[in-house]
């Protein structure tokens, strides 16, 4: 081969390599875009909620109130009759079957929404007031354009009669969309229009806090000891290898550990953020220790020598110089470890966090769900409303992960000291 041929071959090889690289990068970008587009197109509609405006007659005689009318007596009152009376007026019904169909246009919570409105505005008693009531999931999806109307009636969830009412309400501009605050304030529910991630949000929050409180100090202390103080011998080598092994253990194994020890032996309360936090911190520990040790190792030996040579003890050298310099890497390692824990599903399923929990937990020992488990739970539901809620939850989860990773990168860049 002549020199010229070799040169040409070298150029070709370089060109080919660049092309392969470009292809892989664009493939990766395309997949991410497809994922994001898919989630957003499905999930964005979950952030709005369809409301039907109804003229409610707050007729006090229907409330069967005894004594004076005030907020307390209203709280105990039964609003069912009053609510049904007003709702049935939106469209003529010829029999009880059609009446039931009218009521099914609304979310099952209509009674409480009507009640809450009066409790907030007690002066509206005995008046006719326009109140916006959450529509049922079927009407919500119809309004968002997710239900095809041209199917035969027996294959539709919305009957012809209900469609007529809907069209009539649209004509009278009684149907409206508003921001879906239920998505953030409510816990889980069997009815998609009433289900929210409030409970799982709090559950995830408590879980991560417990995970942080447990794993951060232990991981930091362990890595400082192993890296700076422990003698280098067979025992520390063995520990080091096993930390690396633990980081690679599938997360579901930690779930089994939590189930076996925390729930069965120690009898901690089931499906609580407390147990989830402890289980996840076991999983997170090695994943924090490894980057912590790496960042301690990255502090140049010259800094240690400098401190030692002015008469700092080993302890002073480590805590005055090495640890502060390693802090940015340590913190970002911790945050990334916690972000992984936040997205973990499998171990939480094993410790019972898949339970259907309606109440929003107010402490780490209340039963609760967590964001990734909520995704898993809702993805199994058939209703169209849960499909969009699933995607919306994924969006929230991804949002938190991106924010956490961003903080990690920011900390690393902001506080990283430059040395020679």
């Amino acid at each position, binding site marked *: 081969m002549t020199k010229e041929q070799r040169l040409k071959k070298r150029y070709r090889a370089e060109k080919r390599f660049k092309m392969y690289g470009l292809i892989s990068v664009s493939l990766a970008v395309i997949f991410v875009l497809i994922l994001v587009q898919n989630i957003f197109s499905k999930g964005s509609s979950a952030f709005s909620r369809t409301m039907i405006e109804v003229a409610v007659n707050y007729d006090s005689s229907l409330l069967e109130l005894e004594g004076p009318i005030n907020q307390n007596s209203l709280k105990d009152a039964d609003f069912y009759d009053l609510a049904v009376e007003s709702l049935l007026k939106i469209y003529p019904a010829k029999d009880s079957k059609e009446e039931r169909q009218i009521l099914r246009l609304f979310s099952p919570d209509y009674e409480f929404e009507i009640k809450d409105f009066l409790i907030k505005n007690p002066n509206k008693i005995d008046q006719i007031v326009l109140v916006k009531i959450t529509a049922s999931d079927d009407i919500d999806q119809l309004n968002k354009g997710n239900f095809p109307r041209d199917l035969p009636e027996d294959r539709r969830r919305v009957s012809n009669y209900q469609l007529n009412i809907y069209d009539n309400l649209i004509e009278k501009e009684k149907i409206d969309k508003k921001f879906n605050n239920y998505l953030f304030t409510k816990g889980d529910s069997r009815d998609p229009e009433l289900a929210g991630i409030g409970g799982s949000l709090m559950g995830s929050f408590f879980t991560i806090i417990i995970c942080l409180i447990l794993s951060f100090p232990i991981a930091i202390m362990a890595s400082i000891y192993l890296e700076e103080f422990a003698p*280098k011998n067979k025992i520390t080598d063995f520990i080091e290898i096993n930390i690396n092994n633990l980081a690679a253990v599938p997360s579901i194994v930690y779930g089994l550990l939590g189930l076996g020890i925390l729930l069965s032996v120690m009898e901690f309360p089931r499906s609580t953020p407390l147990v989830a936090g402890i289980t996840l911190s076991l999983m997170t520990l090695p994943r924090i220790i490894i980057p912590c040790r790496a960042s301690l190792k990255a502090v140049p030996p010259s800094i240690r020598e400098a401190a030692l040579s002015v008469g700092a003890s080993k302890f002073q050298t480590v805590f005055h110089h090495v640890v502060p310099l390693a802090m940015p890497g340590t913190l970002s390692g911790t945050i990334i470890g916690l972000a992984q824990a936040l997205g973990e599903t499998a171990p939480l399923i094993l410790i019972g966090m898949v339970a259907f929990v309606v109440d929003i937990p107010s402490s780490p020992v209340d039963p609760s769900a967590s964001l990734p488990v909520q995704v898993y739970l809702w993805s199994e539901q058939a209703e169209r409303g849960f499909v969009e809620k699933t995607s919306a939850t994924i969006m929230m989860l991804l949002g938190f992960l991106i924010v956490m990773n961003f903080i990690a990168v920011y900390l690393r860049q902001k506080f990283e000291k430059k040395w*020679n």
Partner: protein
Amino acid sequence: MELNNSKIKIKAKNLNVYYGKKQALFDINLDINQKEVTALIGPSGCGKSTFIRCINRMNDVIDICKVEGSVEIDGAEINEKNVDVVTLREKVGMVFQKPNPFPKSIYDNIAYGPIIHGAAENKDQMDKIVETSLKKAALWDEVKDRLNEPGTSLSGGQQQRLCIARALSVNPEVILMDEPCSALDPIATAKIEELIDDLKKSYTIVIVTHSMAQAVRVSQKTGFFHLGKIIEVDSTDKIFKNPANKMTQDYITGRFG
């Protein structure tokens, strides 16, 4: 071999150092005089740095390093188990090959040593220590207006003088310098050498250097190391003008090394 009327500050007797199985120093016997500059010369890897790291027990940090034999400072053995290395290093300061200021302000760089040893009772005393240390290191005039800037923002030569000032801040008796000018340009080197000349009035200095010229310029006594052994120790004058050993002669004239 002994120089007249100077007191011996450091005395190394039968010093052997091992890195794992490899022996780095063989039976070193060396006396270092008080308030004088002793230069250690020799080819790379001959054990000069290992030797001076024995004087403040910096070798303790290296796990596989084992030191045998005796080093005495003012007649007191330092290799005993009960010797506190912190007190020892307060007495024996060190300046390294590459300037290694802490990534902190100039002020904090100097103040760190006095703080951990509790040398100052209040801010005024600390300011005084910082000022004198920087003045002794001939850096005060250049940095007095920017004591809060990071030490790493200084030039290489200034950083090295900052490191010298840091070593001086804890009032040592001995200063060990491990090729302090190898990372510096000639102008910065000249400044450091001038400084060393000045410092020898109050401190005992041991300097490792690769530059013969530097050894001649700054030192009164020179030791020539080769392959972990001391080949020859004598007054600098004698070593460079009329060495007793053929190997020393060959090394200083540039025939090997």
